[in-house]
């Protein structure tokens, strides 16, 4: 396959960027989208040009590093991560636009790489549980109801990629934050910080400059891990409960 790429190139956070056109030849339909970019970068390197910078790590859809907006869709046309997207989803001769996540809270570092440390600070604000450390506790010391375990697992699937923010017209981080809040909130181990967690994580989310939720559902459509929109509803409920229950004074 021959692919025409229009890629966002930007030297650093301050420099202005622009879409730059490249042709990539000899693309196999079995290549992943990132392997196709590797092919381009090998050529650019040989030609003495700067390769296109993009984030990636596991390349198996579990780490959340890859982050490409492909033809206007976060992670591209399939419901998966950019690294698990394959070139068979495109046709020979296609023109493909590749852009970084766009959100004020995710500034571009270089080319297609954005700074997602705002997510880390949301986690630091409350995405933890206080457990006694030392020897591993007896596995059945804290019984977890099956339904709670399933719900926690569904939310624990969030890999923190930020596609939800990239897809949202308001650059809102509600889907990510709700996945983390619900993951820990439904488990007995998460109970001690149940109120402070949701209040602090939502406050940090706001402080980072993410937009608010208008329930367009673009986030849940883009999420490679199928975190449902109702996760936001559940967090809203937790948040309202916490405003009533949290100790003050």
């Amino acid at each position, binding site marked *: 396959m021959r692919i025409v790429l229009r890629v966002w190139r930007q030297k650093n956070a301050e420099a202005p960027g622009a879409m730059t056109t490249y042709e990539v030849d000899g693309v196999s339909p079995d290549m992943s989208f990132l392997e196709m970019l590797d092919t381009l970068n090998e050529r650019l390197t040989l030609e003495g040009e700067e390769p296109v910078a993009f984030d990636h790590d596991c390349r198996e859809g579990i780490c959340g590093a890859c982050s490409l907006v492909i033809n206007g869709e976060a992670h591209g046309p399939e419901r998966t991560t950019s690294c698990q997207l394959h070139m068979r989803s495109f046709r020979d001769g296609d023109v493909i*636009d590749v852009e970084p996540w766009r959100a004020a809270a995710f500034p571009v570092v270089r080319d297609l790489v954005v700074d997602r440390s705002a997510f880390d600070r949301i*986690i630091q604000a409350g*995405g933890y549980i206080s457990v006694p450390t030392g020897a591993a506790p007896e596995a059945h010391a804290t019984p977890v109801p099956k339904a709670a375990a399933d719900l926690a697992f569904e939310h624990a699937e969030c890999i923190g990629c930020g596609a939800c923010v990239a897809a949202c017209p308001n650059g809102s981080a509600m889907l990510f934050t709700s996945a983390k809040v619900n993951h820990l909130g439904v488990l007995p181990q998460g109970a001690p910080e149940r109120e402070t967690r949701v209040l602090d994580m939502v406050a940090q989310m706001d402080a980072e400059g993410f*937009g608010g939720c208008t329930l367009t559902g673009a986030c849940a459509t883009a999420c490679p891990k199928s975190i449902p929109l*109702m996760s936001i509803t559940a967090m809203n409920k937790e948040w309202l409960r916490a405003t009533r229950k949290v100790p*003050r*004074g």
Partner: protein
Amino acid sequence: MSTPTVCAMALATRTDRRPSTARTLWDSTVGKKTIMAVSGLFMLLYLLVHMFGNLKIFFGPGQFNGYAHWLRTVGEPFLHYEWALWIIRVVLVASVVAHGVCAYQLSRRDLRARPVGYAHRPARSGYATRTMRWGGVILGLFVVWHLLDLTTGTVHSGGFQPGHPYQNVVDTFSTWYGDVIYIVAVLALGMHVRHGLWSAAQTLGAGSVTRDRFLKITANALALVLAAGFIAVPVGVMSGIVS
């Protein structure tokens, strides 16, 4: 990338004072949405009653004007003349202001949060959000016009007669612009309620996977009933059923 961490150290206990509930609500995007949801539901409840009341116009001037008079005497002798009406007006003005201010502040924040758009525009790009914002602005302007037209009579076409709402309504809907402004606003209302009611359920944490279908159908049905009920009045005047 960001996975929940298990704290290995003893947690530093938060000792800072937490702000009041009102402060927490006002300072948070989730709180402001809550204010929008609650004020929106107040307005919605009022509009349902308002719509039903308006339909009395089909039973003649005696019935309609009598109903308008009753609105002023309701609650007597416990309440004084027009007190009930004023209580409703105060709650409504508070709701409109709270709803509008939160909508404005949240919308500004949302636009700032996405300063750079995509070169490749996605097909679906916030249809609901845009109709809510523009629809909301249309509704806000309509409310002002509506009050100046039929409550104070300031911009009324023809002689405004206080205490004779039947004739005033017929006058307004006998002008083409009266009909156009009103029908556009009611259609905007229908769209607004369609997304707004379902949205409010999510904001207040009342939505769920099993309840979603029910909520969407309810929001659509309510939007339809409201719009049809309100539009019946100008249609009645235009077709000569009400004159």
